[in-house]
């Protein structure tokens, strides 16, 4: 090296990504505990597809393969796909989604660092539009053993409707809508009463809430390691809780509590692992607050009024679109130009 600085901190993209992967482990462990080892198969499938897709694209683009495969960013995308998709989607869906994410959303936009959209969330949205049924079948905790999971993943014909249901988020929304209907037998019941069933735990969906807590734990570790800052998870959780809390306070019979929203679906995964993706997210401190708060509100709106089981993916993509605008308008004043 010819120019200063001649010393550098021992930091690398690979290290950052590795820590993100490590931080996912507690959530994954809870996932396996409550929902079975099928998710591990999905993680492996997605990882293999991601590496293959990345390697092929790097070869075509003439980039050094070892360097870029070793940065682990593809694996992070793969794991986020596996963790946000239902654990029993057929193998080809996981593989297709991962390839789409890596080849189209990431590499065709220029590879690492260039993609305006979060690859995993883009894949999620594409798949839920293309295969709404498959993307909405979630087994309840403890419902399926490993072999039936394998069968669902690799088997041909599926008769899943009989054995799986919607996510607790989805189910509660449906129930709440029903409760609002005077003709329904659920009429007049409140969220708390609706949540009395076996599908629900203390905070959110049964089992699912522990997975969410696992991700929260990993996220806090990332915060402590300074891989991420508090801005995005903080603003996201606050905005989601505030918008959910507002409507819940006004009409408790029509809406789920903020705690339920935070503990369900992809909330924690989104707050600490998805929205915090530096490449597709806002970069300035104020921008991060805006970006994540927007995603929080959108997530709630889509969950409460939309047709999809969860809102994190769409909210992320919508906010990804706003990033250039947000970043441009939130540049902090530079040294000597601050108004105290």
């Amino acid at each position, binding site marked *: *090296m010819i120019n*200063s*600085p*001649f010393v550098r901190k021992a930091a690398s993209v690979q290290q*950052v990504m590795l820590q993100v992967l490590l931080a996912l482990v507690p959530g994954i462990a809870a996932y396996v505990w409550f929902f079975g080892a099928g998710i591990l198969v999905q993680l492996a499938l997605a990882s293999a597809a991601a590496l293959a897709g990345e390697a092929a694209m790097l070869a075509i683009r003439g980039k050094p393969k070892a360097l870029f495969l070793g940065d682990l960013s593809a694996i992070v995308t793969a794991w986020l796909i596996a963790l946000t998709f239902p654990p029993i989607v057929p193998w080809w869906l996981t593989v297709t989604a991962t390839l789409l994410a890596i080849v189209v959303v990431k590499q065709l936009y220029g590879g690492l*660092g260039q993609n305006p959209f979060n690859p995993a969330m883009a894949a999620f949205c594409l798949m839920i539009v293309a295969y709404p049924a498959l993307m909405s079948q979630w087994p309840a905790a403890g419902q399926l053993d490993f072999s039936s999971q394998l069968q669902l993943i690799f088997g041909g014909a599926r008769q899943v409707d009989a054995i799986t249901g919607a996510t607790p988020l989805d189910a509660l929304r449906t129930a709440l809508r029903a409760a609002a209907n005077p003709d329904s037998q659920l009429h007049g019941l409140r969220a708390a009463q609706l949540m009395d069933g076996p599908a629900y735990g203390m905070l959110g969906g049964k089992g699912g809430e522990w997975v969410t807590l696992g991700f929260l734990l990993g996220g806090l570790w990332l915060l402590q390691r300074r891989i991420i800052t508090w801005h995005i998870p903080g603003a996201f959780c606050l905005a989601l809780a505030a918008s959910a809390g507002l409507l819940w306070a006004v009409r408790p019979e029509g809406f789920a509590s903020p705690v339920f929203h935070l503990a369900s679906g992809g909330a924690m995964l989104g707050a600490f692992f998805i929205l915090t993706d530096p490449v597709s997210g806002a970069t300035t401190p104020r921008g991060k607050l805006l970006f994540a708060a927007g995603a929080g509100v959108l997530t709630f709106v889509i969950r409460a009024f939309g047709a999809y089981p969860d809102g994190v993916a769409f909210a992320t993509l919508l906010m990804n679109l706003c990033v250039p605008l947000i970043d441009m308008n939130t540049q902090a004043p*530079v*040294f000597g130009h601050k108004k105290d």
Partner: protein
Amino acid sequence: MLRKLFKFHGGVKPQTNKVQSTTQPIAPVPLPERLVIPLHQAVGGHPRPLVAPGDKVFKGQRIGGADGSLSSAVHASTSGIVRDVAPALMPHTSGLTTLSVVIEPDGEDRWGELDKVNYRTTPPDELRDFLRDAGVVGLGGAVFPSYAKLKPGKEGRLKTLVINGAECEPFITCDDLLMRERAADMLKGIVAMRHMLQAEEVLIGIEDNKPEAVAAVQTAIAASGQTGIEAVAIPTRYPAGGAKQLIRVLTGIEVPHGRRSTDFGVQCFNVGTAYSIFEALEFGRPLISRVVTVAGNVDLPRNYEVLIGTPMDHVVRLSGARADTDRYIMGGPMMGVRLPAFDVPVVKATNCILVGSPALFPPPPPEMPCIRCGECAKACPADLAPFEMYWFSRSKNFGKAQEYHLFDCIECGCCSFVCPSHIPLVDYFRFSKSEIWARERDKSSSDAARDRFEFKNFRQEREKQEKAEKLAAKAAATREKVAADSQAGTANPAAEAPDTAKPTAPSAEDTKRALIAAAMEKARQQKAQVAPKNTEQLSAETQADIDAIEARRAVSAATPPTPDA
């Protein structure tokens, strides 16, 4: 009483590596064979030469006169004969030459006549002229002529005089040792500056990793009976020693880019500068030497009092550079410049000769794309968004880069230091600045033009060097192949007689190594003999140098010309 300190944004904490060079006091350096004194050593115009080859000069005699509105004089560092006034390599990455006076010392080290002034009775203008002619410039590295900064602002008086003893760059300890050993005299210089600036208070900022220096300065202040002068320990965080950062830490004032700090009632000088002002006023001695840290890949890191113009390798030899040394860096590892040769002269800007090796300063891992993680922005003490500037610099969108305040960048290197993608961000900013200067040539001052020229050359030089490195690698491969072939082949005369300086390709490498080893061993022995004394054994020391040089010459004669280098 605890003073309220302020924080600056960002900053980093590289390994300080300072203790190694603080165990020994500042040492003198034996006179070198020749001194090469560049005439242009400070910011501003080029001083004109006042001597010609053959002239006899005294120590402290002016050899370069200040020229233009901003300039600073240059002096002979010892007595002797002027051998040449010609361009010589300057201590800068560019590898450019600059007009220099070559002096062969006569060994008497005799001062010429020196005039002193009483700063209390001399009118300020005369005092400033005196300091200009004494060649006093900022010794923190910026080498800005001090006289030009010794004017109080519009109001005729200054609120705070900040004295910079922070010394935040890793490895460098010259200010630390100066404060430890010469605090009282330095303080006299500070008092004079305070008088010139009519400063209400004086704050001496010292990073808290130098408790000895803080204590020494505090003791000196107490002993002097001065009031309104305070030595303040500030948190250790690079670049706390940047003038703007230090002013911010001590006073809370942020001086924007392009504004004079006196407009805000503050002025900042380095502790070394204060000491040289003392020397100039008290004894009439111009700035002809300075404290220089020799650190890094050496056996005995320490500080030396070095005459300006001394070849760097002459100083480094005293500390014993290790065998794998591959470069000298002037300054510290964060902002220092890599030097084009080992024998470039020590100049007024030389606070440290950092001896480098591939092991000590390994090349960075391969550069990856920016992942917009924002680490660089978090670390930037100028509150910039380096990755945005990087983006626009890369795409040569210089207007946009300027919109993101490119010129507020102080090139501290924090961003490159933290980047997980190992992007040489500062390089991009230096490049962009030079390109913008190039485009604004018509409007730019002569100074900016010089910088631009330097940068352009430095770019070309880099390209050249990269090419040379590739060629050298190729040549080495060829040599190895030849060697392997010849070993497999018949007996080879040079292999039997490695001492002969016959240019034979296969064993030349071995010959060279053996010769260097022998010469170095001899030099080491001779140095071991002279180690306890310094100046008396000068001739032996010089002899050792000569031997080493002769050996190297013989070696280079023995080295076969490489086919494609």
